[in-house]
């Protein structure tokens, strides 16, 4: 990711800032300017709580450039409490313990080894949900 791309998406990456559609009330993440569900303009900011459940997951053994030394790692589709799915890595969990439906919560982590243009990328990953595990 280049510096402009990183800077432009920092709210999304660090605070899970998305949007809510004022027309159909769909919560949108990642944010986009037009609601894909009802085609209305959707620019109202909405911060997601960061909790969700695993919708699907995969243990990545063969990684793309920039992630080779992180492998193996777990990636997932996470269903956020407010509705939308997002794609993220899971962290602080043994790959064997991941299951569909597992409660997870968002944390901020370094995204990849090395850097492009001297940039160290941070962003969201998800880990097993602490609160719920205790409840």
């Amino acid at each position, binding site marked *: 990711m280049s510096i402009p791309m990183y800077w432009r*998406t920092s709210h999304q990456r660090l605070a899970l800032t998305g949007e809510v559609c004022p027309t159909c009330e769909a919560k949108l993440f990642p944010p986009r300017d037009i609601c894909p569900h009802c085609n209305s303009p959707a620019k109202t900011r909405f911060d997601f709580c960061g909790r969700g459940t695993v919708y*699907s997951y*995969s243990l990545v*053994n*063969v990684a*793309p450039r920039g992630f080779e030394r992180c492998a193996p790692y777990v990636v997932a589709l996470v269903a956020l409490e407010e509705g939308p799915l997002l*794609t993220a890595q899971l962290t602080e969990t043994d790959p064997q313990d991941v299951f569909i439906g597992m409660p997870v919560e968002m944390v901020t982590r370094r995204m990849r080894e090395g850097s492009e243009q001297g940039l160290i990328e941070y962003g969201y990953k998800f880990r097993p949900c602490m609160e719920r595990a205790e409840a």
Partner: protein
Amino acid sequence: MRDVAIIGIGQTPVSEHWDISLCDLAVQAVKAALLDAGIERPEMLFVGNMLSAALSRQQNLGALVADHAGLRGIEAYKVETACGSGAAAVRMAYMAVAGGACDVAVACGVEKMTDGTPEEATAALAEAADALYEATHGLSFVAINALLMQRYMFEYGYRHEDFGPFSINAHENASTNPNAMFRRPITREQFVRSRPIADPITLLDSSGIGDGSAAVVIATGELATRLGRPVVRIAGSAGATDSVAVHDRREPLFFSAAHTSSQRALAQAGVTAADIDFAELHDAFSITAALSLEACGFAPRGKGVALALGGEISRQGRLPISTLGGLKARGHPVGASGVYQVVEAVQQLRGQAGSNQLPGCRLGMTQSIGGSGANIITHILERIS
């Protein structure tokens, strides 16, 4: 729109062509297709390609390939829809001829994977996905499809080994195709023991990437008849899209673009899925083939794998797929695969498929996918007797 036929086909073997450049690969396929058609100079050329910028540092392929193929001066374009780029080139050539912009056009798909390192190729392939919200999280293109497969297994109760018939069928069919990259049949045992790439997807769930080029010459039906060539009509042609990121879809396990484009193409041809004699589907991964079968209406939702388990996708089954090896075993030169599918369907419909020939086939479907279901192009080809 005018009646349109495919009057020439050409292909290089899919392989690691260390000694042939991107451009020369395309030239070989284009020249072979023109020779097969008996045409010297088409009016237009459409080149489907995904990775030449990333791996060969070359753009402007329309003009480059036209010139090197001895066609300097003709109108030429590159079209890109990620892994479905070749089919997009066929669709453009179809529209140009059917719509009357020209009488003869060539569609060529070409991909040169080995000019970059494997890590570069893996990163470049991930550009088919959402750069900001999928690729930056370390998801390879395989990983995105693995997420679909894992969920599919969960929802419908399949085990990984149930996907075996897709790969076993593809390798079986490739074993007698001289242009295929992987010509060794595989066993159920080998499938089960295969090395994981992005769990649950293993090496043997995945198509093998390689260098290759394929081309077709497309002309008006009238010209085809006049030339006295074996006539394969393009009876239906359609494209449709979905979100690029899988997470942006409400039903990730339903390829809505496959549904839409196949329904449109079938309607144009005036037939239904039940009439199709064989299908060259986009079996980039075994899960992709299953989801395509379902979206096209060849199987109910959740039953694509059951169809394969029942033996119906083999050459003796109800709906043979990957009849010359498919992406899985013929090999998947990404932006070229969509044209290979059409070339192979024409081989079948002309009765030129050698020991893989399906007896008496008349209607074939080809379907190519750019991204994980994002851009899907379907063609219905019909033999005219």
